[in-house]
């Protein structure tokens, strides 16, 4: 392994009411992947923002290639060769892929942007990274995963890069895409770059990292050499206890449970003849690669997008769902995968977001009872252990994982009978994940029915009673949990030719 290129010591950082970093430290060598782990709100992103000049540090020292550096702006960091792929997407939605990647560095002919050259350079870059994307696509029209890849391509397009930071890049990616990502990370490593890799997926640590730094409550805990470390030990350092998630071996649904939701021949641009049913108290998993049409299907069911054809029956009665309001009225709630765009009003407080789905419950007549609303949002904060200074804190200032918890509280509060969770644990730490699993299991036991889209197969196997697999807008398989395996799911998920093949008992 190479020389130490980055050394951060004694880093201090406070926000109003939050001591986000206290004596934090981190060291990275050339040609190594340093994983940075810790619970939601542990200060990982903040430390990275200090390192990239986004936040000024209150105190501490940053040495880069042996020289102490002061970062006044993100540009300073970029000039030094420190680049970051942010946790929250930061693309300009109305611009094309190529424009986003080369913004500020456009190839020009005199005063004009050389569009053709820019698109060519982008194509070249994307090809070298094995990303299948048209440089002229407007970013707004891309799925979150694709947008994430654009971000990664952008970070890799700076050719003086010496240190590259990935803040939870894999949260929105599926296994195949993660394989691709790991391939370029390994390639970069071989080129002698230093890499910082933040993730909540513990299974990845062994695969990609050389060393692991654990943070807790803004403080440095320990740095471990991956090869000599047990992942359970890392988790213990992170959350202070051992967590073991057992896969489910058999369906927990009562055999005579009534069917609460039936979807038949649902069609739209990205959804082709999808039919399935959901039983009371069931957790139905949806597996598939990015672009398989899972989110699109659920958006049709919850009225977010108009469907071309198809029928939806709730409790045996056909319902007309044209808007999300109709869906909610019929007891269907949808937790979006893209919280910033579709899930939260990030400029408003936690309480306001939590009670938004059902203001009537905390109102007397026309007026909102703020005290009651605060009390309720505090209950959810305690229940799923959201880390925040108060209920009036703006959602914007929460860490990524904690924002996700607000989306969950919001729908728990609405108390719908059918809950559609789209990537519910994206960006959530192991401890909280296991709490959310228990919560979902509890909900199902209480008689709620749950649909869960997830790109993490272990999560699907841990929670689902039954798993539907989709590929390119079609349902390609249905597996009972008793006979489901990662390999089985992957076979259906990449099954591009077959129509519906049932494998369920």
């Amino acid at each position, binding site marked *: 392994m190479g020389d130490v290129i980055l050394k951060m010591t004694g880093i201090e950082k406070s926000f109003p009411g939050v001591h986000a970093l206290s004596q934090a430290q981190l060291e990275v060598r050339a040609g190594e992947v340093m994983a940075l782990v810790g619970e939601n709100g542990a200060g990982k992103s903040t430390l990275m923002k200090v390192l990239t000049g986004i936040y000024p540090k209150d105190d501490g020292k940053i040495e880069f290639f042996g020289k102490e550096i002061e970062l006044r702006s993100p540009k300073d960091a970029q000039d030094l060769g420190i680049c970051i792929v942010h946790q929250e997407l930061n693309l300009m939605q109305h611009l094309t892929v190529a424009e986003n990647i080369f913004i500020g560095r456009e190839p020009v002919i005199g005063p004009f942007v050389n569009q053709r050259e820019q698109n060519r350079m982008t194509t070249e870059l994307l090809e070298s990274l094995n990303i299948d994307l048209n440089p002229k696509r407007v970013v707004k029209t891309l799925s979150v995963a694709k947008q994430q890849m654009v971000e990664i391509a952008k970070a890799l397009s700076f050719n003086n890069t010496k240190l590259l930071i990935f803040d939870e890049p894999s949260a929105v990616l599926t296994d195949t895409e993660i394989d691709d990502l790991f391939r370029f990370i390994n390639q970069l490593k071989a080129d002698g770059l230093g890499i910082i890799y933040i993730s909540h997926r513990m299974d990845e640590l062994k695969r990609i990292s050389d060393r692991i730094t654990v943070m807790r409550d803004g403080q440095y805990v320990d740095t471990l050499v991956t090869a000599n470390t047990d992942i359970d030990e890392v988790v213990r350092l992170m959350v202070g206890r051992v967590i073991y998630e057992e896969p489910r071996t058999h369906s927990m649904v009562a055999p005579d449970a009534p069917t609460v939701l039936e979807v038949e021949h649902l069609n739209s641009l990205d959804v082709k003849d999808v039919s399935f049913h959901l039983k009371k108290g069931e957790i139905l998993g949806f597996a598939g690669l990015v672009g398989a049409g899972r989110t699109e299907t659920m958006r049709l069911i919850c009225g977010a997008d108009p469907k071309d054809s198809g029928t939806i029956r709730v409790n045996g009665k056909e319902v007309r769902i044209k808007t*999300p309001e109709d869906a*909610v*009225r019929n007891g269907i709630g949808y937790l979006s995968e893209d919280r910033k765009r579709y899930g939260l*009003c990030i400029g408003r407080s936690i309480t306001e977001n939590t009670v938004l789905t059902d203001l009537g419950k905390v109102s007397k007549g026309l007026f*909102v009872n703020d005290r009651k609303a605060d009390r309720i949002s505090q209950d959810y904060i305690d229940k799923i252990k959201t880390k925040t200074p108060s209920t009036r804190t703006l959602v914007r200032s929460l860490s990524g994982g904690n924002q996700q918890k607000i989306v969950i509280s919001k729908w728990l509060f609405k108390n719908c009978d059918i809950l559609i969770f789209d990537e519910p644990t994206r960006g959530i730490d192991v401890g909280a994940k296991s709490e959310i699993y228990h919560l979902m299991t509890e909900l199902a036991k209480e008689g709620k029915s749950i649909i869960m889209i997830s790109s993490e197969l272990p999560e699907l196997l841990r929670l689902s009673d039954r798993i539907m697999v989709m590929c390119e807008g079609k349902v390609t398989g249905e597996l009972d949990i008793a006979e489901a395996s990662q390999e089985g799911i992957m076979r259906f998920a990449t099954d591009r030719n077959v129509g519906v093949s049932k494998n369920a008992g």
Partner: protein
Amino acid sequence: MLGKKINLQKLLAPVVLVILYVLFSIIGNGFFTTDTLKTILESSYYIGFMAFGVTFIIITGGIDLSLGTVMMCSALLGAYSFKVAGWPLALSLVLTVAVGVMFGLVNGVFVAKLKLPPFISTLGTMMMAQGVGSIITKVQSQTWPTSTDPLGGWFKKVFIRYNGMPVGAFWLAAFFIIAVLILHKSKFGRYVFAIGSNEEAARLSGINVEKWKIMVYALSGFFVGMAGIFYAAAYTTITPGTGNGQEMNGITGAVIGGVSMAGGSGSMVGTLIGVFIMSVLKNGLASCGLQAPWQTFFTGLVVVLAVLLDNYRTRAANRVRKS
């Protein structure tokens, strides 16, 4: 300690208002009198009502350019129904407000149902309102009753001044409180903020965004109709084809008061203070002998300063402090 600091920042706008008032009292000619205070109040009524209305709209992320001409149109039609058609005054007043609500509904439907950008649709209704007023009155000026009129002599006494008492201020105060309650305490108000801060998230939460947006524009129309009454009470004669540009007074009041044009944030108290800052400035500059063009110039300057200040304020609130 932190709480105090933020409160101090909130106090900034009122403090500016007081400083301006004191400043003009010192340098202005005959500014520091109860008469001037009354003039300041009285020239704030109709602007205040417009600003209350448009505050709701701006917080949803929209804008209303039709405020001014709709206000004139409603005052014009009210006067016409009273003087020409011989309606009882009370009914004419109801009509005045109804005209405002109607245009508000039209705006709401354009924006929410037909998905027209607010800027464009209210630009359209701005011209339509001006046209409607002129067509119905056949481009004749209309007058409201003065306090000596045998018929409807109570009009000014009820809305502007009674025995030297600025009764309009009570109306403004009452409706200010109503506006505060609606915006900051009611369910409706929460939806207004939620829509302005992330419309799609609000929609996916099962909120009928279209309905609430129409309500917002209708409510604003109600306030504009009220503004029509107070404009009439202050100026008596209404000329068709005017009103253009008055919307800027309302919008400016809200913006000076810290309502963000991006939507999602703002407060009624801020708007009220913004309106007063404008009136104090206008009357104060006049008392220094500076004429209308100067007043316009300085108001413009204040708008820019207010927004700068607001930017600084939010940035300061987000900035990192040592603990």
